[in-house]
């Protein structure tokens, strides 16, 4: 395989972003079409990678390695295995739908798409990275555009606060992880940042126990782990729609994924030692996040806290350190990414038309925008883990794994599902059914063609995975096996 498809995926967005910056800012339609073209290219390439990944062979594929800073053993190294191939595809999907959803954005779209694409390059770069320095480099590229995207195009009321809070939280997490990574680099004595080489480093058990928390939790901040989840609902709510989709749909996976790769895979003994703590915190995420979501009066905050709750399941899946749990966590990352992108897209469409997100002031939207209502219900069913939808495919193995690892956690975390059902039902009932307030009658414009395409794509994927789990589950399982190899079959 000499065609550098992963590198092209990584650099397509940023190159498109640079091209956008060179286009005159007034030519907004040209800007949008360039953005869409880049998104389509990235999506088709990531789909190509996903479909041509050789499942029988498993392991890392499409690998490219170039020396970057040879004197320190740093290389530009990319590759995919069963764990990240779906995440690359997810990023492509969210990027594509995000551009469609943002079609109507009128304030400086050139800068908006340029920053969004820099972010996308960072995300792709982390997901395919096989070198710790490379990973961190792209990780931070993904962080700072968030600040501008939220601060400039976000919701006026909280955007400054939320943007600053989010950026500082994530930066703190990443620099703490940086210290851990440097410690690993020098302790290994291998003079390399390559993750595949560091897997064989045989760090002492004491070292692993000491350095696991900074590395794992440093990245898990972006995964929204309790008690460092606080930035996330605020950030979700303040962000413009496409950015919320990226943020909840992809960025939180970035944190979880980096925590898995750098934390659990490189410091497996540390992971075993600290897994009870992660189980505990993850349970808090699931249950507490769901409770908080239930009492929100703002539509978008409900979804924001639901992400905290669902990401808790990913953390729980990681902490089981067994095959079922890890597979479930991998599936949940994909499924939740698509689902939450769908949710935020819907919230954005409702807000753009109603100019309020107060649940008590909304109602009856299924009459004016039936497709949106259907899409949201699909997302809701996924969220509740209904069989036939992707949520079930993801959550079922997580609970299987949890039962094997720690039955009590499985029982408590299952509460989260019940509460999720409650708040999802409540939102569906209040927002989409019931009486429509008189002020909205006749004032709700229909959704655009681009919006419909985005919704159909997202909802379609959720159903496809639910009905035909074989399109993704075996792949993720091979990725989980790649992790388990290092955990000594624990």
């Amino acid at each position: 395989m000499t065609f550098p498809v992963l590198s092209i995926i990584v650099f397509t967005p940023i190159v498109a972003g640079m091209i956008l910056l060179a286009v005159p800012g007034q030519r907004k339609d040209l800007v949008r079409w360039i953005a869409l073209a880049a998104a389509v290219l990235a999506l088709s390439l990531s789909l190509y990678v996903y479909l041509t990944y050789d499942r029988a062979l498993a392991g890392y594929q499409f690998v490219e390695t170039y020396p970057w800073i040879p004197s320190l053993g740093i290389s530009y190294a990319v590759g995919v295995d069963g764990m990240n191939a779906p995440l690359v595809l997810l990023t492509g999907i969210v990027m594509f739908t995000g551009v469609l959803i943002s079609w109507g954005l009128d304030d400086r779209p050139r800068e908006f798409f340029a920053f969004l694409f820099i972010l996308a390059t960072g995300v792709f770069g982390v997901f395919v990275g096989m070198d710790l320095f490379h990973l961190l480099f792209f990780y931070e590229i993904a962080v700072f555009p968030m600040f501008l995207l939220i601060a400039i195009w976000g919701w006026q009321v909280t955007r400054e606060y939320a943007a600053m809070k989010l950026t500082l939280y994530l930066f703190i997490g990443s620099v703490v992880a940086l210290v851990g990574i440097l410690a690993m680099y020098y302790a290994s004595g291998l003079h390399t940042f390559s993750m595949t080489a560091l897997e064989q480093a045989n760090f002492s058990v004491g070292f692993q126990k000491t350095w696991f928390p900074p590395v794992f939790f440093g990245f898990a901040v972006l995964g929204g782990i309790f008690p460092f989840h606080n930035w996330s609902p605020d950030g979700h709510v303040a962000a413009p729609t496409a950015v919320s989709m990226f943020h909840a749909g992809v960025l939180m996976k970035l944190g979880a994924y980096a925590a898995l790769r750098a934390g659990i895979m490189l410091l497996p003994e540390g992971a075993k030692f600290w897994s009870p703590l992660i189980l505990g915190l993850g349970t808090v995420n699931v249950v507490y996040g769901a409770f908080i979501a239930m009492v929100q009066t703002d539509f978008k905050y409900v979804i924001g806290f639901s992400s905290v709750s669902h990401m808790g399941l990913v953390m729980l899946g990681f902490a089981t350190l067994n095959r079922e749990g890890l597979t479930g966590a991998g599936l949940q990352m994909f499924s939740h990414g698509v689902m939450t992108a769908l949710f935020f897209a819907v919230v954005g469409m409702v807000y753009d038309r109603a100019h309020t997100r107060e649940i008590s002031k909304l109602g009856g939207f299924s009459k004016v925008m039936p497709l949106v209502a259907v899409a949201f219900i699909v997302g809701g069913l996924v969220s509740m883990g209904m069989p036939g939808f992707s949520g079930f495919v993801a959550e079922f193995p997580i609970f299987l794994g949890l039962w094997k690892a720690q039955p009590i956690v499985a029982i408590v975390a299952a509460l989260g599902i019940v509460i999720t059902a409650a708040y999802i039902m409540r939102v569906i009932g209040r927002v989409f059914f019931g009486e429509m307030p008189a002020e909205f009658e006749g004032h709700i414009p229909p959704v655009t063609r681009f919006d419909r395409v985005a919704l159909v794509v997202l909802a379609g994927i959720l159903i496809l995975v639910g009905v035909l789990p074989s399109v993704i589950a075996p792949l993720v399982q091979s990725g989980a096996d790649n992790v388990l190899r290092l955990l000594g079959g624990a």
Partner: protein
Amino acid sequence: MTLPTYDPSMIGAVLPELLLLALAGLVMLVDLAGRGRRGLGWLSAAGFAAILVLTLYFGRPTASQGMVFGGMLRHDGTSFAFKVLFLFCGAITCLLSLDVPRVGTRGEYYSLLIVATLGMCLMAGASDLIMLYLAIETTSIPLYVLAGFLKDDVKSVESGMKYFLFGAMTSAVMLYGFSLLYGATGQTNLYLLAEVIRGGQVSALFLGGVAVLILAGFGFKIAAVPFHFWTPDVYEGAPTPITAYISTASKAAGFAVLVRFVLAFLPDVSPYWSAVLAAIATATMTLGNLLALAQTNIKRLLAYSSIAHAGYALIGLVALSEFGTASLVFYLAAYVVTNLAAFAIVILFARSAGSDRIADYAGLSRRSPGLALGMLVAMLSLAGMPPLAGFVAKVYVFAAAVESGLIWLAVVGVLNAIVGLYYYLTVLKVVYLYRSDDENKPIAVPRTYALALLTCVVAIIGLGVVSAPWLGWAVRTAQSLFS
């Protein structure tokens, strides 16, 4: 050890200095002839650039060369690297000065700038106490004048005065330290002196006291806590191109002598002095960053940020290793190009808007998207975000600290980076988010400034993305101090 006094090949060691001297004279002559007022800046900038190129080709240290001119100078990787850095700063500063009123058309302004650079080049190579002192003064005196160059501006005069008083005081203290050192060892050559001290005949307590005196002089140059008090006022009052120059070239020159001095005594400095330097680094970073939080004037903000950056760079020195020194050199290069870019924008903005208040930067992204983008790059690089120079530079110094077992110092560094990020983002927030009544007034960007800014931005991204060759260069530089 016998020190060769002269042979013709030594000219290469002082090539940039000789050429700078000629350039200074030429600028004065052209000014006297009264020809081409605006051409003076171009002439100086082109002169700097030409000297830079000539130095790169003919001024390289060869393996055989070490001490030259009777041990007055040392022609090695370090002096070469720093000279290149100073010449780069000089060229950019000239470009930035061209359109500054009451500054950009004055021959003596450029001549003083060139002479200051000459002094810095000597500082980079000085390996003898007398030479070192002369070089420092050759640098400082023109800078005092330049800081107070705007005679009608109270702030500029205050700036020059303050700079002079602080500078004169600290350099007197430092000279006293030098004299004690000479008295105790009978040597003025740095490396011979170090050998005597290694002989163990000088009491450690005495040396400690002397080191404090000398550190005051160097600390003033790099604006390290507690010798930093002059920084904000001088930066604020001085003509902005000079602020840019003081904050980059002059600081780098301070580091050049500090590094040479500390490493000359290497086997004797650790661990006690390493702890003192670590404490200074910690205090410098922390204080600089915390005080920057409260600033409302962009020049003062950059002043405190430059203090903080001296602290980060010191981490590389504290590591007392080859890689640590390399990371310091790399850090300085990254910092220099970034800060020059930031000041280029400050100058351009002040030219159009007549203000240095951060609040007045509101609407900049609508007035001039290009400048706003430049500000974004500069601020994020200062904050240490990839893919920019500041990120790799920070990773290198922190890595050097971890390599030397100073994990706590790396932790202090990253915590400071967080504080730093906060105030850099605050600036960007004003630039991108806030609106202003003036946002329909575009900001004119003359070609010279565009050239300077573009050079810096390309350098920032280049250092950040393709850092391997530059790091290799920094490592070779560092090796010359450890051989």
